């Protein structure tokens, strides 16, 4: 049991927690925009796998990680437009539309991967983002390896926490987003183009989820696999509720989910006999508890999941 308390275990646990949280964090930050504008996008699970595939394909054929990232963002955006069209333009039920996109995304990515790469003995791989060396910061004992030896995407995600907060709280665009999510009719009467704002928010959600997916295929691993998202898109939805639409709390919530995962992996690897499944299910139980707390206070955006149309009252 001594190894649990060792420095090496501690460092690898916390560094691992950060890495595992990143894809969830990307998707959750994007979903904050989407939900704030009044739309529940359950399709981000599907957008993430599209992002994972397009990020990998882009990198594989050009040899450039940047191209991979851009293509993940672009296809994430493109795929999220379907959600926008279904939920905003034709006002379909968002739960149904999102579920359809998650089912479609998983199968479409798997299908396209097979079409592009055929059946191979060994999966094609790419050279992934390497960890940065931030000079003396990376060499600080304990803190260095935990915080300052990650790849660039990790820092991009952390920077987006600040950006998301700034955009939503300090800009007129953020104000419009919240107005559209709370009182679309009032926003409309003040000249805010409700549906346009919602389209933009769904698209931002798509771009961020695309990045989250790409982190898995070109930032965390070096290949694409069909089941690599493994529910992280849905976890991101939970994280958004858990964090009550606040980017900082979303970071905390993503770390809790990532931490539970990292802890069970490391406990297993050193052979500690604890039921890791119970540890893994803990964040989901917590989410239900938080949801109950949030719902009672009615903190949801008032127009959550309600399509807006000028004619109807």
């Amino acid at each position, binding site marked *: 049991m001594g190894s649990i308390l060792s420095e090496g275990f501690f460092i690898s646990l916390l560094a691992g927690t950060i890495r595992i949280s990143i894809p969830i964090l990307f998707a959750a930050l994007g979903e904050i925009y989407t939900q704030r504008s009044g739309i529940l996008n359950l399709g981000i699970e599907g957008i993430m796998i599209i992002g994972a595939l397009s990020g990998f394909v882009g990198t594989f054929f050009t040899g450039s990680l940047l191209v991979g990232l851009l293509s993940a963002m672009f296809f994430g955006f493109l795929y999220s437009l*379907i959600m926008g069209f279904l939920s905003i333009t034709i006002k379909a039920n968002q739960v149904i*539309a999102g*579920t*359809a996109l998650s089912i479609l995304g998983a199968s479409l990515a798997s*299908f396209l991967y097979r079409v592009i790469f055929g059946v191979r003995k060994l999966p094609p791989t790419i050279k992934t983002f390497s960890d940065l060396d931030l000079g003396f910061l990376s060499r600080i004992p304990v803190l260095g390896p935990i915080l300052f030896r990650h790849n660039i995407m990790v820092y991009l995600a952390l920077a987006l926490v600040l950006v998301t907060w700034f955009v939503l709280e300090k800009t007129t665009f953020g104000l419009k987003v919240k107005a559209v999510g709370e009182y679309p009719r009032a926003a409309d009467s003040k000249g805010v183009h409700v549906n346009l704002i919602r389209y933009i928010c769904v698209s931002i959600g798509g771009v961020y989820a695309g990045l989250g997916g790409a982190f898995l295929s070109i930032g965390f691993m070096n290949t694409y696999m069909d089941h690599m998202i493994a529910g992280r898109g849905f976890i991101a939805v939970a994280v958004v509720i858990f964090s009550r639409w606040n980017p900082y709390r979303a970071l905390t919530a993503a770390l809790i989910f990532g931490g539970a995962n990292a802890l069970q992996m490391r406990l297993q690897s050193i052979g500690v006999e604890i039921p890791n499944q119970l540890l893994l299910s803990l964040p989901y139980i917590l989410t239900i508890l938080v*949801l109950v707390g949030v719902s009672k206070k009615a903190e949801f955006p008032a127009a959550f999941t309600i399509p807006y149309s000028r004619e109807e009252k």
Partner: protein
Amino acid sequence: MKDNLVKLKSFQEDALASILAILSAFFVCGLMLAFIGHNPFAAYGALFRGAFGNTHKIAETLVKTIPILLMALGTSIAFKCKIWNIGGNGQYTFGAITSIAVGLYLDLPPIILLPITFIAAVLGGLLIGGFVGVLKAKLNANEVITTLMLDYIMLYILSYMVNGPMMDPEGFGFPQTPILPEGLRLMTVIPGTRLHFGIVIAVVMMVLTIYFWKSKLGFRIRLVGEDQDVALYSGIHVPKHLIMTMMISAGFAALAGWVEVFGLHHRLQENLAGNLGSIAFVVALLGRLNPIGIGIGALFFAALSVGGASMQRYEGVPYSLVGIIQGLVIIFVISKVVYERKKEKTIG
């Protein structure tokens, strides 16, 4: 008489819309196949033969129909009440766990024990549905999130059970429970195939659902779904009906878990539910929440998943095409529904 005619007409329109959605999905996928150099007709032919080619294949398709039908019926009851229960997998898993626990550890003669396991599964479903229902009706907690979270929680509980307390002591460490004794297994309907008595149960439940919608409770649930305010003014206790609807809906999914464990798998393994939940979701919508429509939809999607495997084997078309068809079918179904609504508005 006139009322019946109107009903028949709307049923025909619904059926036409669903068929159109399916044809559109097949058409889009056919274009994709042609684009990548497959012959779509050969692929779809292999799919059809894989699902209905001989007695054995038909039996396999029917085996797959059973859980889809039961879960989709449950899903449809919740959807009619505008409750978005997307956690069929979790409820299925819970029903499977509670019933097999009773079946394995209660020492009673099979003839008495089998009905008890059935009751245990349904009670498990009612319990988990009641939990979600109370959270929704009393605490306003969004059921989409709670049922989704419960899916994961149940997945991990199942994994814990088959790796821990319920693991087969003679199973060489495989993550599975001991196998059920012969006497506790549902009988086979067609000898030499895996088709079990569950098909009868599923069809009976489908017929019961038709009558359920004609009952007082069914009517009230529908009314709550259509307009909660109107329901309230007509003296219906809305929260109570939300909870009951969620219980019934989860009960169906748990029953599906029982039927599959006692009729097909005969033991628990990890990730028992697979993607049944999402298929049931698609089928409920495709069947336009109508029990007979759902029956046809369940058969259709069972055929797709059974035939899809043949299509992959003989034509080299990736199995994931089946999932693409599913996703497209929902998208086309909801687009069609909305198109109709727009049309009505411009006329009215």
